[in-house]
């Protein structure tokens, strides 16, 4: 074995020092800590039917809105606006629906390759390096949150790899969250003056989202399925 940095060293963080030719001293960067669980709280009383700022912001940030050649029923759909009507009262609410980042995700259960997985901090992702495009997860997802890339993609964003033959969905802006930023849907909603979306650590009782959830006891979609979504809907 010649003098060369190990793979572990290569993975490490930005602080590096050259010890000798081929030897780098690097400070290891820690993986995502366990114990945290990222989630969203969406206040449906602030969300209006005509507004799709969150959807547009997501599509622009990750480039999934660029597709023009696809059939409309095959269009990528990381996040969508849904009209929910209570059949008894007739009340109609407009809300964004994206991957619900379940604690017990059915997509992960059915994935034959391990491509669908839940990160230590609760974010449910598709590892598209391993995805074979079988779409079992799309059938298993009770929320219709995932979509399949049917055609070759060019001009991807550097921060948003996506390509033909794999399944994709909302990843809770995982790269931004790892960098300490907020999801783009939240920022778009805030810049529209609505601020209907709250993001934070559900497991931290002192976080703004956890305190608000304790205060208003928001609903989660399809509680009968007991998948325990990480996305909460207030006023539903």
């Amino acid at each position: 074995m010649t003098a060369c940095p190990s793979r572990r060293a290569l993975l490490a963080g930005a602080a590096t020092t050259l010890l000798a030719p081929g030897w780098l001293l690097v400070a290891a960067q820690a993986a995502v800590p366990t114990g945290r669980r990222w989630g969203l709280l969406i206040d449906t009383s602030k969300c209006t039917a005509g507004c799709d700022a969150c959807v547009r912001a997501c599509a622009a940030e990750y480039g999934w809105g660029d597709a023009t050649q696809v059939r409309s029923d095959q269009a990528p759909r990381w996040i969508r606006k849904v009209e929910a009507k209570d059949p008894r009262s007739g009340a109609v609410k407009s809300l964004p629906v994206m991957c619900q980042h379940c604690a017990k995700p059915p997509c992960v259960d059915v994935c034959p390759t391990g491509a669908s997985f839940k990160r230590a901090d609760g974010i449910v992702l598709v590892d598209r390096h391993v995805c074979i495009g079988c779409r079992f997860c799309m059938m298993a997802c009770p929320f219709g949150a995932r979509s399949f890339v049917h055609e070759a993609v060019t001009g991807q964003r550097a921060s948003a790899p996506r390509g033909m033959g794999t399944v994709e969905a909302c990843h809770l802006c995982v790269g931004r969250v790892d960098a300490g930023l907020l999801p783009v849907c939240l920022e778009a909603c805030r810049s529209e003056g609505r601020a209907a979306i709250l993001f934070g650590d559900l497991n931290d009782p002192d976080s703004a989202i956890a305190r608000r959830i304790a205060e208003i006891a928001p609903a989660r979609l399809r509680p009968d399925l007991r998948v325990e979504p990480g996305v909460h809907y207030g006023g539903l």
Partner: protein
Amino acid sequence: MRVLLAAVSILSMLVTGALGAERTWPGQCVADRQEMRRNHMDLLMHTRDATVRQGVRPAGRGLDGCVTCHAVKDERGVPVTVADERHFCNSCHISAAVRIDCFSCHSSLPGGAR
């Protein structure tokens, strides 16, 4: 036989410009040239799993860092995509006849460029 193989490989690298002695990239690579030539695929594979699965994102050490630093510009000064045979990855992969599928999902342009 071994000498012949070495001569052929050096000749092919010269032809494709991969030897690159005349070429200097900005900044320092994550490992020295010989190490990168031999093991870049293992390094990328390992980085990829740690990034996707564990959220380890060391700045400039992902595939985006590679294509940003090693960007090749065309005669108009615009970085070329992997569809162009002058792209850095192509400078070896065409002659080695190893088809890579990284860029069916990842951007082959420097970060931020489309």
